[in-house]
């Protein structure tokens, strides 16, 4: 079943360049999508369109089979949402927030909420304003998953948290995932977290989807080629090769990302460029991201 469908979405804020241009993305039930991209690439816009908070200029969106702008409440009841920018009412206590959410969500599960409350050791009587950043985010996550949503949307959920709080957040999300098989869409700049949790990576760049690949395929199916600068026009020559996604020069070496397994890529490049000094490495997601965005401006 398709949980999320974006079809040919174009979105521009008033008087500005399009933030999203013809974006199509389809998410099956049980997938965990890690949404990557630089600040301003359009990740949050995409998420807000899914939440029904924004209407695109053109294209169609379906969330759990419904138009999120058509049945806002019905759709929202089946979604959990946590965002870095989200603010819980600071004057309310943890207990009040839980009572409020219980009344908003017919599927609210007191057992789930109670278990999370005690695991997080949240002080029920404390006002939100008195909580640490990590605790406030725990309350937000608790509210997002205690109604057992079919779709969990996390927009930079661990932004601003220390590494221990981030890991705690990740573990809770994984428990939720394991227990419910819920579909998750989350954006993050923490590549290690994305790689740990996601089953599929989607990278937004300049308003378009650039990479859309199973996580395991990214490590095995992409590589970074290091090519010594030689002759003329090597930059364009590299870009013209099949599978080349980005090229940039640093310190006398071209660094190019190829959609190709590293050994095969090296053999091909040595032959094409007639240069035995080409190296190809499989690199972690963070290096890959930096090379990709650096080599494609």
């Amino acid at each position, binding site marked *: 079943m398709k949980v999320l469908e974006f079809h040919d979405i174009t979105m521009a804020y008033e008087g500005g360049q399009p933030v999203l241009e013809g974006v199509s993305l389809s998410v099956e039930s049980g997938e*965990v999508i890690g949404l990557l991209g630089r600040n301003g690439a359009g990740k949050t816009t995409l998420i807000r369109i899914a939440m029904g908070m924004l209407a695109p200029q053109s294209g169609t969106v379906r969330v759990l089979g419904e138009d999120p702008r058509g049945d806002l409440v019905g759709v929202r009841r089946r979604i959990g949402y946590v965002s870095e920018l989200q603010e819980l009412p600071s004057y309310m206590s943890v207990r009040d927030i839980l009572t409020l959410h219980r009344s908003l969500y017919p599927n609210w599960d007191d057992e789930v909420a109670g278990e999370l409350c005690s695991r997080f050791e949240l002080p029920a009587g404390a006002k939100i304003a008195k909580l640490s950043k990590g605790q406030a985010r725990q309350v937000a996550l608790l509210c997002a998953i205690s109604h057992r949503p079919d779709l969990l949307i996390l927009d930079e959920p661990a932004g601003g948290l220390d590494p221990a709080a981030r*890991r705690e957040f*990740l*573990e809770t999300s*994984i*428990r939720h*995932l*394991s*227990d419910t098989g819920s579909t998750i869409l989350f954006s993050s700049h923490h590549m*290690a977290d994305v*790689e*740990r*949790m*996601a*089953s599929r990576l989607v990278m937004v760049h300049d308003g378009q989807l650039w990479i859309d690949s199973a*996580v*395991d395929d990214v*490590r*095995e199916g992409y*590589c970074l080629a290091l090519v010594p600068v030689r002759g003329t026009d090597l930059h364009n020559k590299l870009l013209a090769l099949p599978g080349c996604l980005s090229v940039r020069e640093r310190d006398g070496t071209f660094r190019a990302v190829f959609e190709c397994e*590293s050994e095969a890529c090296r053999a091909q490049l040595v032959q094409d460029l007639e240069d035995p000094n080409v190296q190809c*490495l*499989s*690199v*972690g997601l963070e290096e890959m991201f930096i090379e990709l965005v650096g080599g494609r401006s």
Partner: protein
Amino acid sequence: MLFFLDPQSGVPYYRQLMEQVRLHVSTGSLTAGDELPSIRALAVILGVNPMTVSKAYGYLEAEQLLERRPGRPLVVRVQTNEQLEIGRLERLRESLLDASTLSRRLDISADDALSVFRDLLNESPPDHGREEDPS
């Protein structure tokens, strides 16, 4: 049982996990009948998508290293001495892959490379105990 993931390595997590289970079996820290952690438990401990653990377990089951029993944790299958021997050599081979690639790139002859390896084998192992010993 120790499992860990290296985020810097170019190897996907499920493959890292598979290699570690195989290594545990080859060194004897996991033997026939030993139970593996549940998918959920290991996913939470390692902080990874449960699919990653389930994928690794699935492949190891297909390799006849693990055995699935309905509603129970996976266990290590009985291995013949021959299988264990093959496994041990395969683990060594796996870790020598990078060294052999480097050796070719440095244009080191097979004889020279072998003599380096022989020297390393004959060196006494580093004494890890000394620094940790409080006395």
